[in-house]
């Protein structure tokens, strides 16, 4: 178990390092690094100073070393636009994005699994078939357009929910969260639902496939033969078998959800990391771009590692074999 863990950690570290190389190359090799790293508004003298200060006159590998050194100390440059450490900017906005992503994942579980169960148990019913047709839409509809339509219907036409922005926040563990206030929840509702749509469709289809795959299995028949109620057969026997792969996929999708929040945050003007990165790309605030990419990769790798760990804990076959 520990050897496996160590091996995965090593792999993770390697991937993060690879990412630093890629990001470094992207910034310093593709395109003019002077253009990229120095604010376009600097004049000649400032430029020369900045070049020296940033070490752009030094050999490439040395520059990479400085970059890595800085990264390990949490220094990924200062934002041109905000004139603050880029990493701090990202960290400030992370809770908002997390709120959105976590809510979306929760929604996908709360809505996706029951709907998928129904579609799997009653595949030929009208509702069952509509659910499946609906899930195809979940993949095909452009998330940003659906978000716009949601705003149009619920904010503009009906006036039930606010159209953009994050609502009032309250502190918990030193961080500001908006789901703790009513106003915050109202602002959270649409963006979270919008972000969740793809996830809901995915979980739904997975659940349905799992049910269809497991229902004809012998253990289900045996459970019936023991005289157990259908409710118990589905919700204990079948569920436990389907949940393991579903939880794994949901875990892996969490990282994608955080990345995709970029779109939702743009549509709903949600002040998270995603909106920051889009704005930064548009104004070429490269330090922020670098900081965001490194942050997201780190998040991603950690989530994948945790999910792998979770899987070994959940599936008794894997867990016990690795111990023997």
């Amino acid at each position, binding site marked *: 178990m520990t050897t496996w863990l160590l091996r995965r950690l090593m792999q993770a570290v390697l991937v993060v390092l690879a990412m630093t190389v890629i990001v470094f190359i992207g910034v310093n090799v593709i395109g003019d690094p002077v253009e990229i790293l120095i604010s376009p508004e600097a004049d000649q003298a400032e430029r020369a100073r900045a070049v020296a200060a940033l070490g752009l006159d030094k050999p490439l590998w040395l520059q990479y070393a400085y970059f890595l050194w800085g990264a390990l100390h949490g220094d990924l440059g200062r934002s041109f636009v905000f004139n603050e450490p880029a990493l701090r900017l990202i960290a400030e906005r992370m809770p908002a994005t997390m709120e959105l992503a976590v809510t979306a994942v929760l929604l996908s579980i709360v809505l996706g699994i029951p709907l998928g169960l129904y579609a799997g148990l009653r595949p030929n019913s009208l509702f069952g078939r509509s659910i499946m047709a609906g899930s195809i839409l979940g993949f095909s509809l452009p998330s940003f357009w659906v978000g716009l339509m949601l705003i149009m219907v619920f904010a503009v036409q009906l006036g039930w929910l606010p159209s953009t922005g994050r609502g009032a926040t309250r502190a918990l563990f030193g961080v500001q969260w908006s789901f703790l206030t009513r106003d915050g929840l109202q602002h959270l509702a649409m963006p979270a639902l919008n972000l969740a749509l793809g996830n809901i469709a995915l979980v739904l289809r997975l659940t349905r496939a799992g049910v269809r795959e497991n229902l*004809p*299995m*012998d*253990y289900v*028949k*045996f*459970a*019936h*033969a*023991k*005289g*157990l*109620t259908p409710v*118990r057969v589905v919700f*204990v*026997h079948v569920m*436990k*078998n389907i949940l*393991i792969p579903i939880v794994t996929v949901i875990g892996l999708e969490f990282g994608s959800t955080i990345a995709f929040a970029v779109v939702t945050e743009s549509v709903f003007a949600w002040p998270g990391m995603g909106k920051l990165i889009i704005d930064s790309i548009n104004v070429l605030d490269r330090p922020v771009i670098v900081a965001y990419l490194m942050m997201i990769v780190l998040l991603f790798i950690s989530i994948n590692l945790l999910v792998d760990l979770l899987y070994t804990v959940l*599936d*008794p*076959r894997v867990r*016990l074999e690795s111990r023997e």
Partner: protein
Amino acid sequence: MSDITLDVRDLQTHFLTRAGVVRAVDGVSFTVSRGRVLGLVGESGCGKTVTGFSILGLVDPPGRITGGSILFRGRDLTKLSEPQLRDLRGNRIAMIFQDPMMTLNPVLRIDTQMIETVVAHAKVPHAEARRRARDALGMVGIPSPDERLSAYPHQFSGGMRQRVAIAIALLHHPDLIIADEPTTALDVTIQAQILAEVQKLAREHGTALIWISHDLSVVAGLADEIAVMYAGRIVETGAVASVLDRPLHPYTHGLIGSVPSRNRRGVRLKQIPGMTPSLLNLPAGCAFRTRCPRADAVCEQDPPISEPVRGQKLRCFHPQLELVA
């Protein structure tokens, strides 16, 4: 009170598929009495397993019981509602399946799977249910049952798993156990142990046992009565010794003859010529006539159930009476 635990009369279970009607069980009748073992034999696909499922009402759509009756201690199971059937399953009638790896849920612990069976039919507290589960494991000869209870199915060997399945079947001391090829997936040595185990338990508790198998030798050692099935119908029934020594039906005769152990060395293995007809397209009349050396024009009619020798019933126009000297 009647000693007959199960009385199946002219059972028919058909599957309505897109390709046509599959008559998996097409007029099956037999009885099993208290404490007796009935061996239900036939080749793969003859409908033995579907018969077993039909008794428990576990036939999946597109199949359903389309005719006949199944009298379990006087009650017709085909007329019962689903909750009533659920009441009996695992309680008064239990089933043991062929492959224990697939029948035990791989992600649930053994005690969970046993305790839920206890609690489904008896209002006992959890601790008591666990105790009963432990005792049942001990009864089937599983050592250190307490540890075993907390284990998962994949931690057991095949023979152990099947013992667990038998233990589950015995939890409520059922009146009838249907065992569907329970030893086919096991080693021969384990097979012998399980057979002995089951036989003992049946005798001790007066449980009626239906042992479904395609293996004649197993049935020969275990069963009291035998019913031979072919293409959805029972073609011959009787006491095991009589039927195996003097098979009246040509199919039974062919079946016994083709058992390899009965062959002399160097002599070509006997086979019944031809192939089993598809259950979608059964020939009219006797289903065996296309392969039977004794068939003639009269066999195009459905042979009625006759009893040429006392205690041995069969469906045949040309029973092998010459064997009954």
